[in-house]
């Protein structure tokens, strides 16, 4: 059912806004992989967060919102979700929202990020 929605969306771009709540879409996309990052190709902080995870040996799934036809709506939904003026970068681990760069770094420093990643199956050791 979810994939069908997505297929419809790619065939009928003009009707994309009626194809489901952007927040639902975000949550669905977030639960599909262990580590999901919503990003924008031109955003440098997004680049930093990607480097952080890659540097830890994690292989995150990245969605560039500026390359998605429904990116604008998702951007607005993320801004509302985070309560901040910048939608990206935002990280989901194991389908659950971790947050933006500050939350991710704080959890890395206080030692809670690695267990979270291991639990989600994104890290082994």
């Amino acid at each position, binding site marked *: 059912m979810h994939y069908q929605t997505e297929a419809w969306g790619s065939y009928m771009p003009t009707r994309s806004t009626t194809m489901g709540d952007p927040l639902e879409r975000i949550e669905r996309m977030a639960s599909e992989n262990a580590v999901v990052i919503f990003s924008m190709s031109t955003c440098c902080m997004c680049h930093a967060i990607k480097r952080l995870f890659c540097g830890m040996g994690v292989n995150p799934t990245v969605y560039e919102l500026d390359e998605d036809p429904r990116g604008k709506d998702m951007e607005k939904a993320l801004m509302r979700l985070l309560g901040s003026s910048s939608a990206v970068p935002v990280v989901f681990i194991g389908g659950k929202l971790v947050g933006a760069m500050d939350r991710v770094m704080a959890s890395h*420093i206080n030692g809670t990020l690695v267990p979270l990643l291991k639990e989600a199956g994104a890290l082994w050791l």
Partner: protein
Amino acid sequence: MFPSWPTRFQTTPRVGSSKSGGESTDSGSAVNTLSSKADQAQLEPESPISKKASSSDHQAFDQKHLKLQQQQIHQEMATGPSHNQSSVKAPQEKRKGAGSTSEKQLDAKTLRRLAQNREAARKSRLRKKAYVQQLESSRIKLTQLEQDLQRARAQGLFLGGCVGAGSNLSPGAAIFDMEYARWLEDDHRLMSELRTGLHAHLSDGDLRLIIDGYVSHYDEIFQLKVVAAKSDVFHLYTGMWITPAERCFMWIGGFRPSELIKMLIGQLDPLTEQQVIGIYNLQHTSTQAEEALSQGLEQLQQALVDTIAGVPIVDGMQQMAVALSKLANLEGFVRQADNLRQQTLHQLRRILTVRQAARCFLVIGEYYGRLRALSSLWASRPRESMMSEDNSCQTTTELQIVQQHSQNHFSSY
């Protein structure tokens, strides 16, 4: 929030009163009042070289106050025995029995009080000496500054009175610099409290209060930097708010967390195995976070270069507008770097015990104090061989003060 000065001295009467009656407690508190006043009088002048001098009136008053205390101490030592140890005395009354070194009624309590008196007097003398030396060097520096200023004026380089020492500071930067200067003064005061608390062997609970206060003090500067980054990120990023020596080690507008940890390793001993693992983990994670932020910043710089370099696609104004919007991201990076610094300090606090944390924060504070002092010394170092004699003596005096200053600090360990 912080325990006031009397906390340090409350321990002595407790010990004293356990042995005999009210008389010894009164004497004890008399000693405490004297030495605490002596300490208070000398606390303010004790400051790193780079710190700006507080009002001379206040210090002059303290000097007189101190002299009075010292005279009182000397009088007490000199006065011979006139009555028995066991008689009840008023708290402020001079202890006539103090000088009775030849009598057999020299009990442990008297010995201890004598020793405390001597110690307090000695410390007062040392502090007075350091203070006077600092005054001398400041006087010398002041005359030299006046000379430099006159020379510069004569050469027409003086651009007119500016708060930012000749450079143009934005309002946000000027405000932040003032707030930072005040923060440094608070830092010095809090460090003294921390040092005293360690030295006085406060209970862990009391010491924890002081440390938590010190951590809040650090949280304060990070909050101030958030505001400053919004109004003038360049001021923070280019390090104009810190001294040149600190600027050498600057990373995205402040200290590099992993470098701080590296400096601390070896100075935090003894640590449990778990603590060692924790510290090394902290160094590892902070390094990873620093790497990530640095790489993000590199991409920002590259994007800026790409935007500005070459012929504008549409028109120059649009090119500038795009560049400006990219530059705005710098604030985010300074914020995240500060966030990383703050989280690192908090994690240190979590890993260490109360006493270890106290020593750790003292080490950090003194390290940066010395870097700041280094900047001052460097600025006033002899530059021309003709003036070398005068200047080298000034530098030597300053070095002596730094030495004595750091010795005073280390004595608490």
